[in-house]
Every structure is written in structure tokens, then in C-alpha cells.
């Protein structure tokens, strides 16, 4: 885990979209375990990422964020039909990113549960690598 990313010149921020039911609690679990990661990571808490229109992601990149990780609840999702809709939407966002020339690996849809410490850290680690690539 690279915990010095933020101090590197030009390193970009990462937005972590988390769910109340699942990954937000997962992020707390990581904190309770005192696992360390870099502070260029910003957690946004929502009932379900399905609420965001395609434009939200593109706008976030425009505002200077290097990467976005959508940490959904996956099969733990309490909302009916939300995950397939989210997944389809992310597919459309990829299309729009390609059209705008934004590397698609800067957006990732994944699942993090309430106790998925390692998954959470791995997703951050992976995205840090992507983000460093942009900065370079």
C-alpha cells in the first residue's frame, strides 16, 4: 500500500462512491483495523450509486478527480433491480469516456462488503496505480 501518493507532485484524487448498506461500513472497518492508505481518497456516502446520471461521472473527472471507484453492495444490495441498472449505466459511462478520450480504467465498478477490508484496500491500490499513470 502506497501511503505517500498524496505528497507526490501532481498526484490526483480518487472518489470512492460507497453505499450505506455495505461499502461505507466496509470503509469504517478498514479504519477500525487501522489499515493505512493515502489521503488523496474521498469517500462519498449514498443510499445507492444507481442515483447518479452518466453526467455525474464525467463532471467529476472534469473537476480534476483522477479516478472513481464505485463500491456497490453487489448481491447484498437491498434495492430491487438496482445493481443491473447501475451496471448498465456504468457501461454507458464507459462509452461516453471513450468518446471524450478519457481512459476507461479511471472508472471502476466493484463490490465491497461491510467487512471486506482487503477488497477495499486492493481497489484503492489498483486505482492509485491508474492515477499515478495519469500524473506521469
Amino acid at each position: 500500500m502506497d501511503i505517500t501518493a498524496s505528497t507526490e507532485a501532481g498526484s490526483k484524487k480518487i472518489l470512492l462512491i460507497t453505499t450505506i448498506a455495505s461499502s461505507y461500513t466496509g470503509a469504517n472497518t478498514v479504519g477500525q483495523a487501522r489499515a493505512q492508505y493515502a489521503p488523496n481518497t474521498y469517500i462519498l456516502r449514498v443510499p445507492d450509486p444507481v442515483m447518479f446520471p452518466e453526467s455525474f461521472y464525467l463532471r467529476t473527472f472534469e473537476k480534476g478527480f483522477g479516478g472513481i471507484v464505485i463500491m456497490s453492495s453487489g448481491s447484498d444490495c437491498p434495492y430491487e433491480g438496482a445493481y443491473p441498472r447501475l451496471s448498465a449505466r456504468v457501461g454507458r459511462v464507459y462509452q461516453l469516456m471513450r468518446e471524450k478520450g478519457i481512459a476507461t480504467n479511471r472508472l471502476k465498478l466493484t463490490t465491497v462488503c461491510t467487512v471486506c477490508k482487503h477488497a477495499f484496500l486492493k481497489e484503492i491500490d489498483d486505482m492509485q496505480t491508474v492515477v499515478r499513470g495519469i500524473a506521469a
Partner: protein
Amino acid sequence: MTDHKTETPKIGVYICHCGGNISDTIDVKRVAATLAEYPNVEISREYPFMCSDAGQKMVIEDIQAGRNNRVVIAACSPMLHELTFRKTLERADLNPYLYEHVNIREQASWVHKADHEGATDKAIRLARAGVEKILRQDELESIQVDATKHVLVIGGGPAGMKAALDSAGRGLRVTLVEKSDRLGGHLHDLDTVYPSGLKASKILGRLLNKIKATPLITVALNTTVTGWEGFVGNFSATLSDQSVLKAGAVILSTGYDHVIPADGEYEYGKDPRVTTLPQLIEHMKSHAGQPLVWHGKAIKSMAFIHCVGSRQKEGVHAPQADGKVNDYCSRVCCTAALHTINAIQEIQPELNIYDCYRDIRTYGRGHEEIYTKASKNGVVFLRFNEDAPPEIKSASVVVKDVLTWNQEVEVPADLVVLVTGIKQGAVDELVSMMKLPVSADRFLQEAHPKLRPVEVANNGFYLAGNCQAPMDLVESAAAAGAASSKIAALLSKDYIPLDPYVARVDADKCTGCEACLTECSYTGAIFQNPTTRKAEVNAALCKGCGACVAVCEPRALDLAGWSIDQMEAMVDAMAAEV
């Protein structure tokens, strides 16, 4: 409450030290000082423990002195103290939703210990994002719906009976609906139950007597639910006798079915020596205390084969009716099999028993003792891999035994007992009628396995027993008790407060494009007003997922408390330089 809508937003920001939990890493003074300069922030303070009486008092005094009318507290996780501070605002006569809780402990100070500078910058941005969010927050009011103090329990097995008794014990009227002609469910099939060893008939008798003696409980036998309408606190069920029942909440205790082995699986149905555990238990019950005789033959040696119909693998096992295999573990069957083995050995200690398993799961209190007893009594355990199941021979079972380095072991068997699993009962109609969430293994799904284990995400629905997952009697009773307490709390007042986080429509912006209607998974939650052609939301039915929000081109739809405007403003604050 004072109407703050017309007031200019004056935001109070409070940075908590949390002892040193936060302040050892984050420069709280710098955060407070920086926030003080931020637009719309009237006061910005830092304090050792915001959650302490003194901390809360400070907030109340600031509000009452008119120094601020919206509050941001940067401290621990909102899961810990969001509710605490909402109540603080209520005490200060301020709308509790004009409060934003910013997490700078679990998600900042604790995870960036080596980077004080970075953590402090992050805390400043997070606090600013909180300010931006609460700046755009409306004065939300919790939704209130009437509470009908009547509980509908569907399924009259032990879980349903216990749920009915516990609900009635809390003063609620209960209707217990059972589709068969008697209460008791699968308890009728058992001889003794583990771990207590009590007679099932005795437990059943006690439950029946108690139900008879409880006037608040109405039992409806030979009855099913055929129609369903309404929402939490106000359900109306149509029963098979055409009567309509009003209920505030419902407990689903519909039970389970035994998995029937596939045709020819382990020679089942072909070889009369091959039977299932439920059939063996039934046989033993009707021949109580007698040595085992099967098809006229006295049994000298028998084999049990575990995981039949459970932990199945695609490509290895025949799929179930819906085309999927049962990949879950039915988990109660191991202990049930060993409990039965011990019962056999009590009558016939000389009978040789071979237990062929994949993994033994005797997980509950008192279960391990059952395994130990069987093992000490000389039951020989053999372990097989899923891809090499035991082979049934004319007078034996051949096991490729993992414990013997995958050598083939031939065990003599006059009787082969397939330890079959548990599957979801016939609930398809209820599921489609009530829109119940179903997990991948076909069982009914709780809202959260740890935080809300007996509640369904749909408000007002509760789970008890095997309709949720394979459970033994003890667990079913616990679930039934938990569901009843949840309902008692829900129906304790005349109304039910609901989180205001539901979709809402700005009629001025709505163009009547109908895009949102197909996006919603919940019937009746969003609909088109036939006269205005604009979208409208039924707050009691909306679950607040926000699926409709994303497709609303003119941004007429928003999730109260989580609007896209708020989220975008937060992203901007996070992106901005410190």
C-alpha cells in the same frame, strides 16, 4: 419548530478531537480556522469530545443564541453519532435534518497516521463538502403513516407459532395463517429434537396449549393469502376464504421443504436399501425403541452420506426445478444426522455406522457434543470430495476416502441413508405478490445479514425461520422472537415514522416524459398523475434507491437528503484546493 426556510443559512462547524483519536493526526485547530473562512460558515470550533454533554450543550447554545441555523460536525462515523446529534438539534428546536455528520476518524485520522499534512488537508475538504451539502439541505420531515396494531403471521410451524405468541405477548392482535389443517409444521415429523433431546411432540403440545390460551391470536387453518395491497402499517391481505385482513406488519414463517434426491442419485428410488434422513427419522418414530429393520432385514451395518441436495456443483449435480443447483450448505443436516445416529446407537450399540461426509458442520451450542458422542461410540467417519461421491454397491458403499489419502474404502451397508438438505418451500406466489427480495439460493432475503437480520428491505416485512435460510428449532425460535420484538417496536405508537429519504418531484420541472416510471422496481412507488401527466411519488412505497433520479433529464426528480446538486457540490469541495 421555527421556520428556518426564510432564514439565511448560517452554518456552525464543529471539529471533534475524539480524545486524540483525531487530533493526534489531524491539525484540528487548522481545520477549524480554515473552515471559519469558508462561505456561509458563521462559527467554527474544535472541541475534545463533541458527543459529551458539554459538547452537545455548546451546539445547542450556539443555535439558541442565533449564531447558526445549520450544523456540520466533523468527528467519528455517522453510524455512531449521527442520531445523537440529530436529537441535539431537536432539543435546540432545529430541524434534525439540517445536520451533516462528517467522518474524519474511521476514514481519515485512523487511516492516514503517517501523513498528518495530507490527513489535515483531507479533513478540511471533507468538512467543506459537509458545509456544501447542508447548505443545500431542505428541512425534511420524517414521513408518518398510521400503524394498524395487528400482525399477520404466515405459516404455522414452530417459528410461526412462536412469533404469534411473542407478538401477542406484547399486546398485539395476531392472525396466524396456516395452509394445512394443523399447526406444527415439520415438528410433527420429528421424534426428539437436538440439542435438548426433548420429544418434539412435547414441545408442540406446549406451543398449542399456549396458543389456545391466548385470545389475541386467531388461527386460520386451511388458509392461504391470495391478495396483497398496501404498505407498512397499512397492509391489507385477502385470504383464501375471501375475507380481507388489515395488518400493520407481517411475519413470514413459511418454512421449508426437504430436498428430494435426484432420480437415481446414489441409487435412490432404484435400490430399496437407499433412503433419506427424513424417511429414516419417520421410520424410527413409528418404531420407537425397536432395533432397525428395513424391508424385513435386520440392519447390522449402515452408511450415511452427507450433503445430498446441498453444496451442489454445477456440472456435477443435477439442477433443481429452476435450472440452478443448490450450492448452499443446509447446515442443520450434519447435526440432525449425528443426532439420529446417536439415537440408533442408544438402542443398538453394536450396529456399525459409517458416516460419509464432505465437511462436518456441527456449529451450534451443544452440537459438537453430539459429534463427539457419535465419534466416541465408534462411528467411523469417511470424507469424500465433491467430484468423487461414494458409490453404492450391492452390499456396500465404496468411498474414495480423503482421510485415507484418497484410497478406496469399502464399507458394508445394509442401509444407506442420504442426508438430504433443506430448500425453500412453496413461496413463489407470496414473493411475486409482496415483491419480496429473494437471494440467489431462493430463500427470502433479509435487509442486512448483520445489521437487520430479521427485517426485509421492504418496510413492514419480517422473517422467521427456514424461509430465510436453513435453521434448526433453536434458531427458528430466536428469529421468531427477534421478528416479534422488531414489530412490537414498529407498532408501539399510533404512527410509524419513516426516513424522509425518498424520491420527490419538482412538478415545475417535470416534463411528463415517463422515463422514471420504467426505472422503478417498486409497484406504486412512482406513478403518473392522470390529469397533470406529471410524475408523483408515494412516499410510503418508495424505497429511496434513486434509480429514477438518474434518468430524469430535466432534474425534476431528486432523492430527498441526497440530491444530485448536493453530491456535485460535495465533489467540487473535495476537488478544490485548500
